[in-house]
Every structure is written in C-alpha cells, then in structure tokens.
C-alpha cells in the first residue's frame, strides 16, 4: 500500500514533465523561428542604417556589362584554376636532403678492385 501512492506520484510527475517539456521545446523553437522570420530582417535593417551603406541585392547588380560572361565560362575558369592548383604539388622535388653528397671512389667492397689487387 505504501508503494502504490509513490508509483502514481511518479507517473503524475512524469505527465507534468511531459507537458511542460513539450511546451518548452516547442516554445524555444517557435521563438527561434519567429526571431529569424521577423527579428532578423529588422536587425539587418538597423545594421544597414548604422553603417549607412547601401547593401546591394543580387537583383540590383547590373548584368548588362558582362552579357557574354555566362555561368558556363565561370565554371570553366573555376575548373581550370582548380586543376592548376591541384597540379602544383606534382612539380615538387622528391629529394629531401639539402646537398647532394658525392663521394670520391673508394675500393671498399668493390669486387673488381678485390680481384685485381690481392690483399
């Protein structure tokens, strides 16, 4: 009999957590969503006023001057640069020592020297 109230108590507390938890999660994300829907444009507008600089929208940028410059050309240039940058590594020298060492001739372990000059 002593256990039963404890269990029901736990379950009811569980429901409290369930409802408040869901509400808070929704609340938090709703607030975030509202901010980014309405707050952010205001914020950006204020920023624009403070800096007194006109932010250019993409639609405002004139395209007449570069009528021939299409996306394909840009892509081709981009690909060209990318390939060039990738190939840069291939010309690196594989020699890691600073100086190339040249040794004068030494008869050490030379077979032909050994056969001609008996010890």
């Amino acid at each position, binding site marked *: 009999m002593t256990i039963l109230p404890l269990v029901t108590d736990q379950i009811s507390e*569980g429901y409290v957590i369930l409802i408040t*938890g869901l509400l*808070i999660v929704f609340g938090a*994300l709703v607030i*975030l969503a509202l*901010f*980014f*829907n309405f707050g952010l444009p205001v914020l950006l507008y204020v920023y624009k006023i403070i800096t007194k600089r006109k932010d250019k929208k*993409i639609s405002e940028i004139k395209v007449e001057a570069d009528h021939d410059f299409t996306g394909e050309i840009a892509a081709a240039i981009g690909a060209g640069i990318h390939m060039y940058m990738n190939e840069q590594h291939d010309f690196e020298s594989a020699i890691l020592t600073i100086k190339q060492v040249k040794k004068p001739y030494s008869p050490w372990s030379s077979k032909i020297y050994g056969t001609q000059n008996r010890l």
Partner: protein
Amino acid sequence: MKKVIIIFCVLSLLIFIRPALGLGTNTSSNNLDDSVKTEQVEKTVESHSYDGAFKGIKQFYNYTGFANVTSGHATMIVIGIIFIFLGIKYDYEPLLLIPIGTGVILGNIPFVAGNQTGIYETGSVLNYLYFGVVKGVYPPLIFLGIGAMTDFSSLIANPKLMLLGAAAQIGVFATFMGALYLGFNLPEAGAIGIIGGADGPTAIFLSSKLANGVNILADGTTVKNLIGPIAIAAYSYMALVPVIQPPLMRLLISKEDRKIKMKPPRAVSQKEKMIFPVVALILTLFISPSALPLLGMLFFGNLLKESGRTERLADTARTKLIDIVTILLGVTVGASTQADIFITKDSMLIFGLGAISFVIATCGGLLFAKFMNLFLKGDNKINPLIGAAGVSAVPDSARVVHTEGLKSDPSNYLLMHAMAPNVSGVIGSAIAAGIILSFLG
C-alpha cells in the same frame, strides 16, 4: 690469407665478449665449486620445484580468460564481432560501430578483478578514459565538431521548419512516460527517453548525469548505471534509421503528398549565418540553461565556421578533434558493456523502448508536417516527408527522406529541405535534454 683473417676475427670477438659470458680465467676455479654446489641443492629441491611449477601454471591458468569466461562474456564478444562485421561489410556507420564493437570485445575479456584492468575498476587505464563519458566531457566536444560541420542556412532560409524538429521530440517524452510505466525511476526514465532524440552525444550526456550508478534517489537507493545500454541503443537505432523510417513514411504520407515539390530555399547572406549562432545560443540557453554544455559548444563550433576568421579552429574542431573524441567515446562506451552489468532485463527493456521511441518520433514529425500543410498554401506547402528528418540522427535521416522522395518522384530533391528539420532536431533534443535535466538532475 682469408682463413687467417677469419680465425683472427673470431679470436678477437671471443676476447671482447669474454667478460659478458663470465669466462674469465681467474674465476674458473670458483665456477667449478659453484656448479658442484648447485647440483647438490637441485637434488634436494627437485620434488618441490615440480610442484611449484605446476602450481605456477595453475595460477597462471586461473588468471587467463579461459578460466574466467562466462556465457555472458562469450555472448557480448560475439555481439562485438557482429558490430565490427556490420560496420565493415555493410558500411552501417562504420566510424561508430567499429570503435564500439572493439570496445565491446575489450570490455568483455574475462579477467580477475583487483588488477586494475576493467573499465569499472578505479585506476585502470580504461577507467580514466571512461571518465570522459561518466562526467559528460566527450559529448560537448563532439557537439563542437558537429557545430563546425553544420550549415544552418536552410534553416535560416525557412525558419518555420524548426517546428518539425520540435514535433519529433514527442518521441523523447513518450518514451519517458513508457519507461515510467515499466517501473523505472524518474531519472532513469528521463535518460531512457532521450534515446528518442536520436542523438548519441545527447543520450550519453543525459544518461551520464541521470543514470550513472552514482546518484542517490530520494528513497535512498542509488540509480542504476544505464549509460552503456542507452548509448548502444541510441547508436544502434541511429544506424538502423534507413530500416525504421521508410515503412512509416509510406504508411502515413499519401502518394500525392510525397510528390510535393518545395520551392528552393532563398540565398542566405553571410551576415545572417554569423548572427544565427550567437542569437540561437543566447535564446535557447536562456530558455533551457541546463543544456549549456551541449548547445553552447554546438553554436560555438558553428560560429567558428561562419565567422570566416577562425577557419583553422573550425577545421580542427570538425576533423581532428571530433575524430579523437569519437575514438575515445566509441571504445569506452563499447567497453562499458561489461557482461555482468549489461546483460540484464533492464537493457532488454531499454532496447524495446528505444525502438518504440524512434517510431513515435518519426510519426510525430511526419504528422506535424501534414498538420502544418493545412495552414500553408500554394508554393509554401512543405513535403510532409521532411518531417521524418526532425528526429536528429544527422545526416542519416535527411538522406533517408531524400531517397524516399526520389522514389516517388525522381526529380524531387529533398536533401536541402530535410537538413533544416534535421539540424533543428539536434537543437530540439538538446533543449529537451536540458529540460529533463533541470527537472530531474
């Protein structure tokens, strides 16, 4: 001539190594005496030394795994091998399953207690590494890396999709209630519930705070240590997202709805991307301060990425740092599944509840997306499939949504749209973890 040289070399070698071999001429007489003495001693001890050798071998055998192995150990080792096999052969989250599988084998090598070997013995190396799990150090570091990887622009472009991430959190709370009805304590139920958040680090973080085997409940008993089962359940179901979600999508979403094409998200300026982490950090943490380690690190990582000035830090966070932490986390979580602690009725219940929580979370997201569609018109309508991505599991569930969308309409690319509820699901489950922690911690 050659022979002379060889003989000379051998002789000189012998002279050089003579001190090492102890062949000194002046000690030879002593040596003779010694050998005689040892012979005498050996004769008297002979019978005892055989006994001693057998005893030694027997003792050694008692220390080996063969003497201490139980069926539990064997079962868990087989499970570990299956994890590794699944990771390698079928490419199911190999970055997680291979460390965890190896950890499971490591944790279930039978050993004699008291030699500071096992993960639960204080002073052992694994115990020190496990510290990061028990104290919840690793999850925030993983979140830092996730933040530095994640692009929130689709969410910023379409903020209303955040609600889908919230809707899927119904899985967390429903599982929490289910665990309570099955007789778990409140903190344990809270930790089990977060499996529905489909977020490994969050699940480990919350279970290390609530169900760590250390905390003492109001009625005087200590909570059970459920970190291992919860983490394994969470990660296994995350790997199984491609199996669990598609049938539910087909069941709940009609064919016409699956074909809805969403308008492409608008371009988001860099300024907005920079403002997002700062504002989201402040807003979400004011609402749910207990989620500070998780959300703080998530948005910090994102700010590193978007600020444009800290590319080096962001790069480390999203590559090397997250790799190191994933290795440590995977192995130690795997090793924490020591058979005597892991193979219990509770673990089986947790696995059952985990599956149900994934199903509820997916359904919650899908149905809420349908519900939202009632209020949206024309172009703004959303494809209800993306609701399923609300159960974090980044980025697997978004990928599942995408492939499922392609099946009903090969020209409908949902990946970008699905990423929005996906990342908001991460935020949502971290907030939910914070709420549960503040209620029960």
